[in-house]
């Protein structure tokens, strides 16, 4: 055992020296390799964190949302609907919600306006609470006054009460919260009307029943289920991720070809070195193990560098390089502070798909060179 360890130490020693001897080549390889891991890992970390984020947000969302439709388009909920809902079995609670979009021509971005319902979040008339991204874009701080042009054409002044925390910027970035009365007058909405109705259903099994009853009782409305939204989100993420992964797999392919080329065109001096080592008493296994350490050191280093860089990129630099491709739905690019989420399986997958092809691509030709008789070095 001790001899075995000593031997591995010698082999690694030799490997390090050998890596240092071919500095330029190995550095180039390391760079290409790290960049590949970086791109793949960035995509994986980003989509994973995004999905995690969306799921976290939707967890707090109502099970069913009722929207009224007029001629196939979303319309306001008139007074009286809320009361009629209370009689449906399975519905735990219901609330009318007020929300909508507002286009700010100054910064050419869309905001989401909302009037929170709960007492705890109630906002005094004339005040607003704004999301962090919007605060950044408009340069707002608590106490500032913001003038917006209402739907009636009237300029309306709001006082910024506070800025929302960054926790879940994906959803809250472009948010503007205000009181219900302010909301209605800003958008010129008649009193008692709501944008939609959120229903809480305690028993997940009941959700479909409730939806069926809603459809029967309110023929002019459409129930939207949370599970359906979740599915939609998933498919959007999967689709985007799919595009990026397709591109990445092309990158992997290119890398494999590159590695194969590099290795199968095993440089003459490398072949000679293998021959010399064998001739002076190294076993085929020793040579292969040494080369294995070489491949392993390069791959593991590249993997670590690439993965760490991707981590920094996604979680500290807000995926600056390809967020526009992956997000796309927000005009006002939220400067993400995604909460770091790492999925072990994903790391393992990435490791397997980068390290394994490289190792195979380098070791096969080395194995072929190593099993030949060493007498070639005699001439």
């Amino acid at each position, binding site marked *: 055992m001790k001899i075995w360890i000593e031997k591995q130490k010698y082999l690694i020693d030799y490997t390090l020296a050998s890596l240092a001897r071919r500095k330029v080549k190995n550095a180039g390889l390391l760079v290409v390799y790290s960049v590949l891991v970086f791109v793949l890992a960035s995509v994986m970390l980003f989509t994973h964190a995004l999905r995690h984020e969306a799921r976290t947000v939707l967890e707090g969302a109502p099970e069913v949302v009722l929207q009224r439709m007029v001629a196939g388009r979303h319309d306001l909920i008139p007074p009286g609907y809320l009361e009629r809902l209370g009689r449906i079995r399975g519905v735990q609670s219901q609330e009318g919600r007020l929300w909508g979009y507002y286009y700010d021509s100054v910064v050419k971005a869309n905001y989401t306006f909302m009037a929170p319902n709960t007492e705890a979040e109630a906002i005094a008339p004339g005040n607003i609470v704004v999301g962090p991204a919007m605060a950044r874009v408009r340069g707002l701080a608590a106490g500032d006054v913001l003038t917006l042009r209402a739907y009636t054409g009237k300029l309306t002044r709001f006082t910024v009460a506070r800025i929302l925390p960054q926790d879940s910027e994906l959803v809250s970035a472009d948010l503007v919260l205000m009181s219900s009365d302010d909301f209605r007058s800003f958008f010129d909405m008649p009193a008692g009307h709501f944008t939609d109705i959120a229903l809480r259903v305690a028993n997940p099994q009941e959700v479909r029943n409730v939806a069926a009853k809603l459809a029967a009782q309110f023929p002019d409305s459409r129930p939207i289920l949370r599970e359906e939204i979740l599915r939609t989100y998933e498919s959007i993420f999967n689709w985007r991720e799919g595009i990026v992964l397709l591109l990445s797999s092309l990158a992997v392919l290119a890398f494999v070809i590159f590695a194969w080329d590099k290795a199968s065109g095993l440089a003459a001096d490398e072949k000679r070195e293998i021959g010399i080592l064998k001739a002076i*008493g*190294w*076993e085929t296994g020793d040579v292969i193990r040494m080369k294995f350490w070489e491949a392993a050191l390069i791959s593991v280093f590249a993997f670590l560098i690439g993965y760490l860089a991707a981590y920094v990129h996604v979680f500290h630099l807000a995926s600056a390089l390809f967020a526009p491709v992956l997000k796309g739905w927000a005009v006002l690019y939220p400067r993400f502070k995604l909460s770091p989420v790492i999925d072990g399986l994903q790391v393992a997958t990435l490791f397997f798909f980068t390290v394994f092809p490289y190792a195979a691509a380098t070791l096969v030709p080395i194995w072929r060179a190593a099993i030949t008789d*060493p*007498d070639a070095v005699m001439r």
Partner: protein
Amino acid sequence: MSGALPAMKTVNTAVRETAPMIELKDIHKAFNQGQHNEFRALKGIDLELPEKQVTVLCGPSGSGKTSLLSIIGCLSRPTSGRVRLRGRDISGLPERFLTDIRRRTFGFVFQQFNLIKGMSALENVMLPAYPLGGDWRQLRDAAERLLAELKLGHRSAARVEWLSGGEQQRVAIARALINAPDVIIADEPTANLDTALSLEFMGILEKLVDDGKTVLLTSHDPLVVGSSLVQRVVEMRDGRIVPHVYVETA
């Protein structure tokens, strides 16, 4: 070719001071066997190499000297025939065992020296011992000592490509000795050296003989072939040993 042997002495195969270290029986070697370019480099070699003696293989270019040296040193296998090492048949052994035998029994000094560029002389000398996994400090000391004995102590940290031809050869010799083998095999050891360096090599050879090493050389060089250190000269031609020019110098 026999005319080129200046110090030919009486043939005396009957007297054996020592038992044979290596015994070859009917060795054949064919390259590219079964293909249209098949080439039979050795055609039935019978040879015994006594222990602690210096044997030189000579003969024209292409006569099969290097091929025979490779087979004796377990660098390659004969196509047919038997190789015995201290009475033990090693021709059929699997690679692992053969490598182990080679490592412990033979030290090679190649014609091109075959040092690994970019590494220091010291590291090159230590290389054959790496797979043995011994203590690093002891190994380094042994390598330093060998280099010092070969008057290269001051160059041990130098990268081998910076060394002169003679120095490189001495590094190669030190490397051949690091695992303390009984047999030293050198292919054309003086081919790349001028007269002064060749004489230096003969000096080293003398030391090896004094240390009780069995030495096997190939050479065209009269300086080597005619040296008084050489007990036996075996002449080869066309893959065979030329009979009766099988010389032993007293």
